[in-house]
Structures are given as structure tokens and as C-alpha cells.
């Protein structure tokens, strides 16, 4: 809690409709966010039990700086991933962090399974388990609307919910957070579904007095200035992350058509520039962020002859334009937005959905699967057929869709096509075919996300790729990011929040940490996650990279399989040794 030396944890037991609150002094040293959430996962997870078993927990946490400093906007969720079977972690912006803060909690632990579809209402004054039977089957938008109309508190509340994909336990279903943000990757939507938990609404008016207004507001203004008046974050407001499309295309790093290509002949047609000119209608922000990086694009759809149009707004980002655009060979911004809309309504993770569909397209062509399986004529560029397939995934309509609803890893076990399945560490590939550091980084990252350690950034900025340097970068960056994510600072603000700034902000609210404390925290988080993974049976021994990534040139030319394997070995050796030292040091 702000100004106190404990973490206030709300425990919710869905089975017995009971809640408990504990003030945990022992968790204080993990600060918040990923630190606290990983620790709570370690305590509450059940080894050897299915990730979708009711005894497995969902943890959501915020940090000490959440909402009260600029761009500290994320809430962190941890869970056992039904997608990889390993450590699951996902981050979401929106209003959730503010709402949890105002309700007076630092973390929420949810266990058990409701008897019937339920939505939770959490406020500073109450916790209610409400009937969601009528909402079961509703899409993301309708679910949000129903709760908005039933519950009080516009402006102060956060509404998070799942769609059909989560209900049907698709292992890459997401939780939608306040319409435009998500707990996206690794299948937390299915974990909600397995608990019969359709949605949650959180808000509060808890009194949060400021101990030292002068100190706090001075620091607040300094950081605010850095955020708004330097160019540290300008790109996120202007074109936003979609500016990457053109950049990556020009350096042969934009995965296209299931990575048969790393440049796209229609890149300009779906670039950030084109989106901005043709579709961008507004920008919005997470609470506490003066940047406004959430780009909302609009397209119109003719639903009847005689100029009958509807207009649809969805948020877009680089990863979405890649996974549901270039990777599927989609040629116009309007079509990309249409596919995004379908993925949104169903409640699926955009990256995994795109990668699975790209694989299916090639598998169909190669005859590994048939039209009877796909029920849609999947071919690159064919928007309407992809939209059908997305619905089929969410509904798990036949055996084929049931199988691919468990992710690409399961799909190739049954149908083959491993060589062109774009998987890194069991998770579908993110939108950068930049080279070795990215490939290694996404594979070894704690949650197999490109954001764990930003290998793509090393590839793009290095003058020369050096093996030792890649290993150093990937390890150090993941540790530094553990500090940022334990504080729930948006990673887009990583240039603003260097260590001195972080310490200043902490000190301004009475947390007197120093640089060594941060280093220790980074290590503890990094290895705690590894410990969790090991306990869940994780290992990278005998790991095999998909063949396709070596066949298509990156910005550094074609990657050499042997070299990447060697890098992986070097990484494992380094980290294992450090892990032993860390374990002994305890």
C-alpha cells in the first residue's frame, strides 16, 4: 500500500463465494507487479495439476507507483499457461490498475470455480459474486455493455471480460480490459473460462492520502515533463508502433505469408502511415498516461445494398498489423481492421491467432489438412475466409478447430508441418524477423514474449552481431525489464524511467531504495520465474527451432541453424550457472 510497508492482497475463492484480505509484510520486498505476482503464483500454483484445473490460481497485481506517476499504467497477471503449460504472465493497461488502486488493493488472487457463470464486482466496500449465466456466449462488446448498464461508476471503473474463445478454453484466448487493452498472450482467457468467470468489474473510492505532497508533486512534474516535452516517447503518440511496418519491411524483417517472405509487396498499403491517413479517428490513453498511444482505426462495412453502411472502430498496433495483416497476406488497412474486429469480439490473442491461421493456410495448400477440416478456403489475402476461420476457432466447431484451439504446438503433433510452424518456445512468433537476438530472446524469455528481453532491438541497433554480446544483452535486458514490470511501468516509457528516475519516484513516496536494491530485485525476479518454470517441468534441452526461420532472410541475411543452436547452448549454460549461484545465495 502507498505509504505502508505491506502488500494488501485480496483472496477470492470462487467455489465457496468467500473473500479474505491479508496484509503481507513479507511480500513488500518484491515491490509489486511482476515481483509480487510471480511470488504469489509460486505460493498458490499446484504442480502437476492441469493449468485449467479449478485449484490453479489467477493473480493480478499493481505496483507502488501505479497510476500516481505518469505512464505507470499496467496491471500484471500471472497464471499457469494452458498454452505452454509453463509460467504464464501477461500485462494490460487501460483502467484496471487505477481501479485496483482505488479499491485499496495491491494484488488479487483468484482460486476455485464458480458453480455457474459468474461475474465479480470488487469495490472498496464490497465483493459480490453475480449471476452471469445470461452473458455466457456474449461477445466482448456486449458483455461490456451489459455490465456498464447494470453497475454504477462510469469513469471510475474497470471492466474486464472474456469472449467465446475463453469460455471454450481456447488456449490462446485473452481477457479484454476496458475495450481497447488486453491480457493477451498465453491463454489467461481460458483460465477465466475454466473458473466460470465471465467478467470482473473493479472500482473504489478508498482514501489514499499523500504523505509528502511537495516531494511527490515535484517529482511527478519532472517526470511528466520528460514524458511530454522530450522526444523520449513522441513516436508512440504520432504514428504509434505501426511505424514499424515500413521500417521492418525495408530491412527484410517483416514476417509475411507465414514467413515465406520477410518483405511484403503490400507493406506500404498497410503501413502505419496508411492507417493514419485512411483510418485513424482518435487516440486514447491508459489512465495516468499523457501519451495517447492507443490508436483507434475506423472502417465502414456495407451490410446491405443501397448505401447501407455501419462503421466499426477497433484499436490497432504493430503486432496486430503483422499477425492479422502481412503474415496472412492481407493487402488493405480496411481488411486488416475487419480481421482485428473478429479476433477482438471472440476474445482471442491476436498474435497466436494470426500465426495459427498462417500455418493452416500453408498446411492446407500442402495437403496436410483438407477443406473438410478448415471449412474455409484459407489462402493468403482472403480476408472473408479468415474471418470465418476465426469464428470457428472460437467455437471449436469440429475436430480440426478443436485441435488448433490448443495452439500450434498441438496442431503440428497431430497434422505435421512443424518445419513451417512459427513457434518460439512453444509460443507463436511475434512480428520481427530481425535475426539471432530476437529468435533466441523470444525462445528463452520467461514467458516466451518478444518483450521479455527485446532481442529484436539488439538485432536492429547492433553494428555487428557478436555471440557473447547477444547473450549479455538478452540476460541483462530481461533483468532490467523485471524492475520496470515490477513497478508496472509501461515498457514504452523505458527511456523515461532509467534507474535514477525510478529511485527518485520511489523515494518521493517514502520507499527509500537504492541502486543495489534494484539490482537484487531484478535478480530475484528473474530467477524466481525460472524456478517456477523448472518446477513445472520446463527445459530447453533438445529444443528445436522451426526450419522456416532459417530459410527466409533476416536483416542480417539467412540465419545459420548451428549458430542459433550454439547461442541457445551458451545461454542455457550461463543462466544455469547463475541460477545455481542464486539458489545457493539464499
Amino acid at each position, binding site marked *: 500500500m502507498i505509504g505502508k510497508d505491506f502488500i494488501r492482497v485480496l483472496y477470492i475463492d470462487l467455489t465457496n463465494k468467500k473473500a479474505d484480505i491479508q496484509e503481507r509484510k513479507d511480500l513488500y520486498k518484491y515491490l509489486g507487479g511482476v515481483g509480487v505476482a510471480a511470488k504469489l503464483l509460486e505460493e498458490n500454483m499446484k504442480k502437476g495439476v492441469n493449468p485449467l484445473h479449478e485449484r490453479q490460481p489467477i493473480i493480478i497485481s499493481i505496483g507502488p507507483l501505479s497510476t500516481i506517476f505518469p505512464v505507470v499504467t499496467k496491471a500484471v497477471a500471472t497464471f499457469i499457461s494452458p498454452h505452454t503449460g509453463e509460467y504464464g504472465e501477461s500485462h494490460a493497461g487501460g483502467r484496471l490498475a487505477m481501479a485496483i488502486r482505488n479499491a485499496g488493493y495491491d494484488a488479487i488472487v483468484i482460486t476455485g470455480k464458480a458453480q455457474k457463470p459468474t461475474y465479480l464486482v470488487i469495490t472498496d466496500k464490497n465483493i459480490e459474486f453475480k449471476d452471469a449465466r445470461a452473458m455466457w456466449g456474449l461477445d466482448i462488446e456486449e458483455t461490456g455493455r451489459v455490465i456498464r448498464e447494470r453497475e454504477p461508476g462510469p469513469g471510475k471503473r474497470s471492466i474486464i471480460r472474456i469472449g467465446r474463445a475463453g469460455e471454450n478454453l481456447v488456449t490462446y484466448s485473452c481477457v479484454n480490459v476496458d475495450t481497447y487493452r488486453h491480457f493477451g498472450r498465453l491463454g489467461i482467457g481460458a483460465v477465466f473460462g475454466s473458473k466460470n468467470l465471465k467478467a470482473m468489474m473493479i472500482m473504489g473510492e478508498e*482514501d489514499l492520502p499523500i504523505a509528502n505532497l511537495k516531494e511527490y508533486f515535484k517529482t511527478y512534474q519532472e517526470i511528466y515533463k520528460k514524458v511530454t516535452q522530450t522526444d523520449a516517447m513522441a513516436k508512440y503518440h504520432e504514428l504509434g508502433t505501426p511505424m514499424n511496418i515500413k521500417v521492418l519491411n525495408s530491412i527484410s524483417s517483416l514476417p509475411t505469408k507465414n514467413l515465406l517472405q520477410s518483405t511484403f509487396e503490400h507493406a506500404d498499403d498497410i503501413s502505419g502511415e496508411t492507417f493514419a491517413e485512411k483510418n485513424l479517428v482518435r487516440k486514447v490513453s491508459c489512465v*495516468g498516461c499523457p501519451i495517447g498511444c492507443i490508436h483507434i482505426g475506423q472502417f465502414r462495412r456495407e451490410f446491405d445494398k443501397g448505401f447501407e453502411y455501419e462503421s466499426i472502430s477497433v484499436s490497432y498496433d504493430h503486432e496486430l498489423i503483422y499477425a492479422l495483416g502481412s503474415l496472412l497476406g492481407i493487402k488493405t488497412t480496411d481488411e486488416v481492421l475487419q480481421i482485428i474486429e473478429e479476433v477482438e469480439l471472440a476474445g482471442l490473442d491476436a498474435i497466436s491467432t494470426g500465426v495459427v491461421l498462417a500455418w493452416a493456410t500453408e498446411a492446407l495448400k500442402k495437403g496436410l489438412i483438407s477443406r473438410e477440416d478448415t471449412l474455409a478456403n484459407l489462402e493468403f489475402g482472403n480476408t472473408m475466409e479468415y474471418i470465418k476461420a476465426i469464428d470457428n476457432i472460437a467455437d471449436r466447431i469440429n475436430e480440426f478447430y478443436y485441435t488448433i484451439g490448443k495452439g500450434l504446438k498441438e496442431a503440428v503433433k497431430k497434422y505435421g508441418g512443424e518445419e513451417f510452424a512459427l513457434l518460439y518456445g512453444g509460443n507463436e512468433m511475434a512480428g520481427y524477423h530481425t535475426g539471432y537476438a530476437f529468435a533466441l530472446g523470444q525462445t528463452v524469455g520467461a514467458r516466451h514474449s518478444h518483450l521479455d528481453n527485446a532481442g529484436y532491438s539488439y538485432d536492429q541497433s547492433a553494428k555487428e552481431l557478436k555471440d557473447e554480446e547477444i547473450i549479455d544483452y538478452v540476460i541483462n535486458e530481461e533483468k532490467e525489464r523485471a524492475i520496470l514490470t515490477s513497478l508496472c511501468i509501461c515498457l514504452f516509457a523505458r527511456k523515461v524511467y532509467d534507474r535514477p528516475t525510478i529511485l527518485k519516484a520511489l523515494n518521493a513516496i517514502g520507499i527509500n531504495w537504492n541502486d543495489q536494491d534494484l539490482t537484487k530485485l531484478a535478480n530475484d525476479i528473474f530467477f524466481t520465474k525460472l524456478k517456477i518454470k523448472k518446477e513445472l517441468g520446463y527445459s530447453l534441452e533438445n529444443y528445436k527451432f522451426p526450419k522456416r526461420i532459417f530459410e527466409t532472410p533476416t536483416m542480417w541475411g539467412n540465419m545459420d541453424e548451428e549458430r542459433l543452436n550454439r547461442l541457445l547452448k551458451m545461454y542455457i549454460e550461463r543462466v544455469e550457472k547463475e541460477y545455481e549461484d542464486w539458489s545457493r545465495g539464499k
Partner: protein
Amino acid sequence: MPKVLRADNMNKCLGCFTCMLTCAAVNHNNHNLAKSSIKVKTRGGLQSKFAATICVACKEPACAEACPTNALVKRPGGGVKLIEEKCIACEKCVSACIVGSIHMDYDRKIPIVCRHCGACVRMCPHNCLSMEEVSE
């Protein structure tokens, strides 16, 4: 000349709530947005436009008229000033303000009224808010 708060450019609003954070902090020494005098919300879900509920600085403030103890006094330029010691937390001002600008701070047992100080205006990154000079 006195100044009053205006929210004439809410179409530009990002929904960042920085204005509310600032008001709650500097005027009410609190991190909770519920303590802010300016209230930004959507007109119905995040797909709709943002709107701000602010004190429109009435020249004949109904809130002050409704106050039984004279805790709310007219402010030069419009709007009111709260004299905390006189407030008995009867909440009459809350229902008297038809734009819904006043709400209660139940922790401190006083209404939260806008001071037209302009702190929110200075921190809005998109210039949605402004201070307008008005006659007394």
C-alpha cells in the same frame, strides 16, 4: 480579472485522467481520483466520446443558495468558495448543482468543489481544458 475553468475541447481528450490526478493531489492531498473536482468520463463506453463534468462557474450559484449554513460563498467571476468550518455535510449543494459538479468527500465530510485554480489545465497534455478570463 478572475478566471474560470472551461472544458471546450473535450473532443481532443485522451482519457488519461491526468487532470483528475492533479486536482485530487494538489487540492485534496489524495491519490484517489474520486477526490477530484473535475470528472472525465465517457458518454457510454470507451468507444464513445469523452466528456468532462466541471463547475461551470454560475454567477448565481444554486449550490450556495441551497447551503443552509453559508459554507459556500460566491467567488469573484462565478462559482463558489467553500468555508470548511461552516460545512455540516448536509449534501444539499450536491443535489442543487444541476450539472452534477459537486460530490461528497465522505472521508473528510465536506463537498468537493472546484476552486477554478487551473491546476488541471496546466497538466492536460492535449489542451482540452482552458482558463477563461471573466468579469467579476
